[in-house]
């Protein structure tokens, strides 16, 4: 299959390209960018006039809900949602049921995902058995089975010594450890940011220090263990500044933020909107602005969707009893474009945060369009507005604070390994 993508505006952040260039694909790989290679005969030509052609998106956190939570979503529905959102590589956290703490489970997931021929799935292995925060998993075997790194997901890891040991053990094999910084005790029972809104609504709260104390602990332990750490879902200005400082010191740290935290604050909870029940909580406007600044200056490496499809029953409850999370795979691109537009960040720089930068966090060769590279691409219309509605989302999760809103940026084609896997 040979594909010619013509007349598009090519944006390839890693190679610093933002120009009107054609792309030529053969045998699943990019064979040329710009002029056609000699004798290239396309089987299919995609007219990308008015479209932006960029690397397929790399999402650092998307829950597929299998195994164990098929009533919320299935691999089929969420992999469909991924390519509809232009996402061609995604990382799934280990908080399934059972958690991804055994090689067999990981192999099964990889196999099921692969047989769908849609996006690439990179599972995170559980850092501790059953995510209970006590005994280490067989990390090396899990890596052989396909785990890209190790994580505790949102489960608590209270024992500091266990955390140090986990980091040391992972560092032995040069595995990276992904941690969401949150102190278990300070966050206990909390469902919203400890600020004006939670005080007014009487919601149990999570203070910013729950994040900063955990960050300080993780950073120190990572330094001691010499471990590579990826910090998931920063939520606060103070947290962002701690990471900035640690990076300046030269520690091998990376971090991400969810697309929701780039746009929303505690104020969006309004009158108990459970779609704004997020983990970590949406914080103040000032925190949100600082996260945007961190994205701009590179302190924060990537924007992820933090995709969490939740069934309606788990959302139509009092705020404190509702399940946290929002569907996001199909919103990652438009929300990133919205951020770029709002803060005046050039598209090439904005798209880096969802392509080449998260690929670098993962340490995989993806997120760029260098000839020879696997042909994972996203072609989207940056000026096409669409309304976020239950029916417009392919994800089984319809839970998003953006329901009813119009967003710019519609994916027209998604390619994986040189195959068109989505046309919209």
């Amino acid at each position: 299959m040979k594909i010619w993508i013509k007349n598009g505006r090519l944006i390839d952040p890693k190679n610093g390209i933002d120009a009107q260039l054609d792309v030529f694909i053969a045998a699943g790989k990019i064979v040329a960018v710009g002029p056609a290679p000699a004798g290239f005969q396309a089987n299919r030509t995609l007219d990308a006039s008015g479209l932006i052609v960029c690397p397929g998106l790399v999402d650092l956190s998307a829950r597929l809900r299998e195994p164990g939570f098929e009533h919320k979503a299935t691999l089929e529905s969420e992999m469909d949602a991924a390519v509809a959102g232009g996402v061609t590589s995604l990382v799934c956290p280990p908080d399934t049921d059972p958690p991804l703490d055994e090689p067999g489970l990981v192999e099964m997931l990889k196999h099921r995902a692969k047989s769908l021929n849609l996006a690439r799935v990179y599972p995170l292995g559980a850092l501790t058995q059953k995510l209970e925060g006590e005994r280490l998993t067989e990390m090396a075997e899990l890596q052989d089975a396909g785990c890209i790194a190790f994580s505790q997901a949102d489960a608590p890891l209270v024992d500091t010594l266990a955390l140090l040991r986990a980091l040391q053990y992972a560092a032995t094999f040069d595995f990276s450890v992904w941690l969401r910084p949150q102190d278990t005790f300070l966050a206990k029972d909390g469902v919203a940011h400890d600020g004006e809104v939670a005080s007014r609504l009487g919601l149990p709260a999570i203070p910013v220090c729950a994040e900063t104390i955990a960050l300080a602990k993780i950073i120190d332990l990572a330094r001691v263990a010499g471990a590579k750490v990826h910090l998931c879902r920063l939520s606060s200005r103070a947290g962002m500044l701690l990471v900035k400082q640690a990076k300046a010191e030269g520690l091998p740290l990376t971090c991400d933020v969810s697309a929701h935290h780039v746009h929303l604050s505690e104020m969006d909870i309004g009158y108990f909107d459970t779609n704004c029940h997020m983990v970590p909580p949406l914080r103040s406007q000032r925190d949100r602005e600082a996260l945007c600044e961190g994205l701009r200056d590179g302190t924060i490496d990537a924007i992820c969707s933090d995709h969490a499809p939740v069934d309606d029953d788990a959302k139509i409850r009092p705020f404190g009893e509702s399940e946290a999370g929002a569907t996001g795979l199909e919103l990652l691109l438009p929300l990133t474009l919205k951020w770029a537009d709002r803060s005046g960040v050039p598209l090439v720089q904005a798209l880096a945060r969802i392509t080449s930068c998260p690929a670098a966090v993962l340490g995989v060769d993806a997120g760029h369009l260098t000839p020879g590279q696997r042909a994972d691409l996203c072609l989207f219309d940056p000026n096409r507005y669409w309304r976020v509605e239950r029916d417009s989302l392919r994800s089984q999760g319809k839970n998003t604070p953006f329901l009813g809103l119009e967003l710019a940026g519609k994916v027209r084609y998604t390619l994986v390994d040189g195959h068109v896997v989505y046309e919209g």
Partner: protein
Amino acid sequence: MENPQLNQHGELRHLLSIEGLPAGIVRHILDTAESFVAVAEREVKKVPLLRGKAIFNLFFENSTRTRTTFEIAAKRLSADVVNLNIGASSQSKGETLLDTVDNLAAMQADMFIVRHGQSGASHLIARHVAPHIHVINAGDGRHAHPTQGLLDMFTIRRYKQDFTRLRVAIVGDVLHSRVARSEIHALNVLGVPEIRVIAPKTLLPAEVEQMGVHVYHDMIKGLKDVDAVIMLRLQNERMRGALLPSAHEYYKYYGFTKDKLAHAKPDAIVMHPGPMNRGIEIESGVADGGQSVILPQVTFGIAVRMAVMSILAGS
């Protein structure tokens, strides 16, 4: 943001919180309550305003006083009242909150009076029910207890008339108190120039000043020259979980004693939403003393609840 309590004509459709209510509506409720106080003093304490209406007291959390005053208020308006203590039945069988509500709505309910342990539960129900059904929040988590806030305003107005010249202190566990939140909103709506909250730092929510109050940790300073003191109930469980060391120490620094009362204005009134913990947050000499209006609060509570129900039924 659209206020979920008002209909498209700006009339009260549900009473969920004092927050966001126009002062006109609050005053209208208080004025209406005045006329119901007179009803209670008559030999026949009934008016036919809600005849034929079915009112469900939907209590997911235990309460005797609030439920009873709502029941009396509804009966004085000639409504049919059904009391449900859900805490012990459906919810423990796994039925969801909205399933319970749907089932009762199918029994031709006209009004739900809801008490629930989770903040926002009444908002959820109000968003869910058919347009002709009214919801009154009788306490949701730590969020709001608007009829208590209103009856406290009614009480203050009875004794102090002009809100715009008052200094009011709220003392105790503001962090966990839906009553305190409703009072703070109500006092602000009615134009009280100085609202104080007095509590140790462990019992105050973050950024409480944003709600329009002045914070005091020293009770004697906080009580200086106030016109009304509202005491809050302290749950015994606060002694666990590192919020307070002991009831003894709390009483010493935040218990309302006659000595401390002497720092308020000589004609200051003493209020408490009940139930009281004598010897923990308040001394009997203060609770039963000449400045206490704690029992009148209960009486006025019935009139205020009658007012709210009749206004909702008329919208």
